[in-house]
């Protein structure tokens, strides 16, 4: 059974018959499982979901607690790790349909009802169709001539992806530079003691990171009269900046991380043991 599952969910090198068999079987299996869940009486659904969640979490816990190797015996759970990870990836993939439906229905409604900025919805739907069609053609028929011209589907996809999408993404990323300037201006206006402290620390760290700042305190010698380390060198701006980053900033960040990771463990536990009632689905599913 284990061997079959491992083979079934293992990677397929080429898109041959086995690949499509697995694809169809995967679809049928998930639809069957979802169908069974839908047919189950309402009062059982929460129990089924809680049970599946618990068993799924228990597998990972058991895999973690069981030693990787005890003498000649290896951890019996580890070989199934890929299978369990793949299975959850397959189930997750089904949700893509939910997202796509939400996106398309929202913008289709915008166009039909002529809501404000419905022109944007037309652009979105046209882009969606173009990227889907040429994405598929690029994968399965990259040399197909588009509209009987010399241009191939792969070339059109390249223009859409590299010429359009990538450039738009870069442009959006670049906008952050301007937002950093405007946010920094507001943050550094000295309105309180804390803002003043923030401003002073930021100024030192910024100066300590550029050569101009280093030059400002370069007159403080690194070594003393007998070649020993000069304690005053600690007051060179790059050293103060380093101290601020390592002795002030890092411990604060680690302190925050302690709290965050504990919170992460707490939420995971509540979800795993289905204690999280009252936060998500309080009413019957």
């Amino acid at each position: 059974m284990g061997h079959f599952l491992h083979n079934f969910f293992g990677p397929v090198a080429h898109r041959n018959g086995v690949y499509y068999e697995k694809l169809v079987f995967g679809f049928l299996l998930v639809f069957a499982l979802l169908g069974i869940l839908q047919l189950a009486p309402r009062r059982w659904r929460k129990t089924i979901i809680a049970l599946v969640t618990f068993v799924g979490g228990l597998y990972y816990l058991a895999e973690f607690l069981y030693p990787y190797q005890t003498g000649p015996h290896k951890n019996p759970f580890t070989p199934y790790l890929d299978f369990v990870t793949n299975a959850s990836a397959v189930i997750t993939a089904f949700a893509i349909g939910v997202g796509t439906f939400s996106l398309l229905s929202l913008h289709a409604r915008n166009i039909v009802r002529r809501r404000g900025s419905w022109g944007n919805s037309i652009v979105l739907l046209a882009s969606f169709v173009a990227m889907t069609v040429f994405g598929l053609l690029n994968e399965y028929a990259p040399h197909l001539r588009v509209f009987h011209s010399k241009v191939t589907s792969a070339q059109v996809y390249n223009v859409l992806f590299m010429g359009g999408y990538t450039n738009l993404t870069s442009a959006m990323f670049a906008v952050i530079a301007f937002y950093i300037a405007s946010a920094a201006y507001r943050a550094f206006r000295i309105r309180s003691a804390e803002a003043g402290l923030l401003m002073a620390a930021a100024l030192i760290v910024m100066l300590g990171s550029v050569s101009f700042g280093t030059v400002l305190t370069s007159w403080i010698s690194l070594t003393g009269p007998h070649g020993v380390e000069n304690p005053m060198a600690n007051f060179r701006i790059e050293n103060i900046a380093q101290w601020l980053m390592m002795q002030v900033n890092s411990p604060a960040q680690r302190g925050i991380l302690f709290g965050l990771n504990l919170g992460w463990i707490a939420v995971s536990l509540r979800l795993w043991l289905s204690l999280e009632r009252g936060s998500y689905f309080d009413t019957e599913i």
Partner: protein
Amino acid sequence: MQHASDSWPVAALTLLICATIVGGVLSAQHWRLPSIRRIAGLNAIDEAVGRATEMGRPVLMVPGLIGFDVVTLQALAIFSEIARSVARLGNKIILPTIDPVVQGVAEETMRDAFAEAGRPDLLEEGDVRYLTTQQFAFASGVAGILVREKVAASFLFGAFYAESLIFAEVGHQVGAVQVAGTTETHQIPFFIAACDYVIIGDEFYAAASYISKNPTLLGSIIGQDYCKVILLAIVVLGCLAQTLLQHWHAGLVAHLLQHAVGLFRAGH
């Protein structure tokens, strides 16, 4: 993949932390309901929602940029509480998502929240909307929503990355009251610079319990606080042991100290 056998003391500590948290939950459920100190950023939520309602403008909630994860689920738990107050006041929400799985859970969560507040009619199809899975495409989509819908209150809870400042700055430009909380420590300074209120660190995980006063969630916070005491004690004792080792290199005390410090080293 890590295993407990890589470091048994760390595995034992992990189990102790889990037991302490579950103990806190059970204690709050059956014996004593704890109280949490006031958190300014969370008190501002009602104020922001009320202001948006008075202005007749919607409330935006962004659950971060990662998929179906503990952090996103926690963000949705906070949004569920905010949505209840939005629904009670008769206002509207917009919740854009970056992940199809999150979309499904978010829709269900918001539907429940509006139904419990007695206003299921206020939540329309498209209020919870999937935008894209791409980081900057999502950022530009959210920026567009902020400007077009003239959002008056913006809640940014979850995992945010380089795009955090795009949300916060565009929100500031449209005059929205902004409350943010993220688990990404590198983005906290950006939010502090650009938002009105920021919840820091584990306040993010305390937020839902603080708003809902749910015994399970409150108990979990108490458990977390006990765990912090345990971790802090280990850190202090570790520092002391390491400092003492600088002076005692040999003898029984040094041996014991070395053993104690070594307990929490990887590969022990």
